[in-house]
């Protein structure tokens, strides 16, 4: 099953759901309407043999002023991975949770929330997973500033990238 066939099949089933194709190399991605993401993935899981959620992660595009969630659906039958992307507004981004379809989404969505502040509606236990519960900010956002203090302890800065404009002013 090629990418074009998958796109065709989804396009027929969800005329409003597919917003287009991102023509990136070496792999293309499908742009999905965020409000239909659960329906699209349910269809892919149940009718198109995409059995597994290979990965779910967030992305931050300050230039487009949007956050994004990238889903990688994995099929053992077709030996294929398909990437679906949902673009959300950058501030107060929220999207429906996939936990009703894949249990893997539970932790993966928690990580996306932790790192990007994307809210997943209907997630049973949406809290931070890698950072401490009382951490401020979402570290993988491009405009993230490392706080000087955490609970009164100075946060060490090993190197400073603030002079370089390319990757924002992240200090690590």
């Amino acid at each position, binding site marked *: 099953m090629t990418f074009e066939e998958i796109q065709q099949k989804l396009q027929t089933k969800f005329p409003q759901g597919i917003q287009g194709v*991102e023509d*990136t*190399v*070496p*792999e293309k*991605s499908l742009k999905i309407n965020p409000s239909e993401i659960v329906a699209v993935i349910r269809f892919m899981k149940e009718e198109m043999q995409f*059995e*597994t*959620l*290979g*990965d779910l*992660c967030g*992305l*931050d595009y300050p230039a487009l002023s949007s956050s994004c969630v*990238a889903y*990688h659906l*994995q099929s*053992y039958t077709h*030996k294929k*991975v398909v*990437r679906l992307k949902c673009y959300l507004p950058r501030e107060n981004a929220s999207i429906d949770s996939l936990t009703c379809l*894949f*249990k*893997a989404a*539970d*932790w*993966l969505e928690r*990580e996306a929330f932790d*790192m990007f502040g994307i809210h997943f509606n209907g997630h049973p236990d949406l809290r*931070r*997973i*890698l*950072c*401490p519960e009382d951490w401020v900010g979402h*570290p*993988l956002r491009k405009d993230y500033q490392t706080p000087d203090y955490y609970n009164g302890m100075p946060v060490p800065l090993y190197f400073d*990238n603030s002079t370089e404009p*390319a*990757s924002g002013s*992240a200090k*690590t």
Partner: protein
Amino acid sequence: MSTTHERVEGHLSQSLDNLRTDELLLNMGPQHPSTHGVLRVVVTTDGEIVKAAKPEIGYLHRCFEKHSENVDYMGVAPYVDRLDYLASMNNAMGWAIAVEGMVGIEVPRRAEFIRVIVAELQRIASHLMSFGTYGLDMGAFTAFMFGFRDREMILDILEMLSGARLLYNYMWIGGVSRDITPEAIEKIKTFLDYFEPKIDEYNTLLSFNKIFVERTKNVGVIDVETCHTYGLTGVMLRGCGVKWDLRKEVPYSIYKEVEFDVPVGSGEMGTLGDCWDRHIVRMREMKESVRIVRQLIDNIPSGPHRGKVGKVVKVPAGESFSRTECPRGELAFYIVSDGSAKPFRVRCKSPCFLNISTLDELTRGVMVADLIATIGSLDIVLGEVDR
């Protein structure tokens, strides 16, 4: 007049009625030898029965993904070694393949041979670690010593090649950092001759040991449905009878030229997909790895060990999701490049992260000792869970 026995019985039932039963919240870890690293499991127990086991992770979070956005593509490679520090070579190979796929770098055949040999040796080392520590978890100390003794030999070989024992920075984009030497080839051959019969010995020692089998059979059973919904891959998936190995199904590097079998669990000792099945899959995979290395070691073609790659790797704008089969499952790198020297976004999908997320479901209602058996059989490395 009642007998002594009846009196004791009556007393016992009376005291049981008055007994206050309460659930106990137990913190296992983050500093605990049987959690294999800094994992904390918040266990709710009712006596010896586990009611819930919630893993708390993040103690080893080193911001790999954030670091990657601040260094160039070559600079990420040493960080990648530190994800799954027991299988650095496999991780680094995954990263190299991901970047090479985006740029379109041709890797010389000699480098491909060296890569696969080294990756398979690393797989053996990683499985030996799993074998040893799992034995230790189950109370068998000798297995641990044997596992470490043989792993040390592999580490010596890898040190000969790369100059480091654990974190090698050996697989560079476009090839490997140093060429393989004739002495190293000899040493690998000697090791294979020594090691292959040892696998059977270890199986006799541990895998088919009555006590070990009793501890691990019918424990932590996973079925295919659970695997799919949790996205489990690698040994977890093969342990429940699914013949899926990326090296076979979606071959990368030169894996399609070598012959090897994919061992799967069959429920030999108990239920299909239990801890014992996962253990034996790892043991049998070591044998297959030996077989792969044997096929390659005598036929390494001559040529350069690294392709033509500039000092700074220029990755064209694009997105790639590249998977490789690591000892713990499918490790994937999702790279988004905007055409600049540094990656726009690097996402590491770690198999251990998903493996450990099943813990709560697998251990609900089991004994505390079975919880240890289950954690051990998941074979997690916290460096990869937390990244």
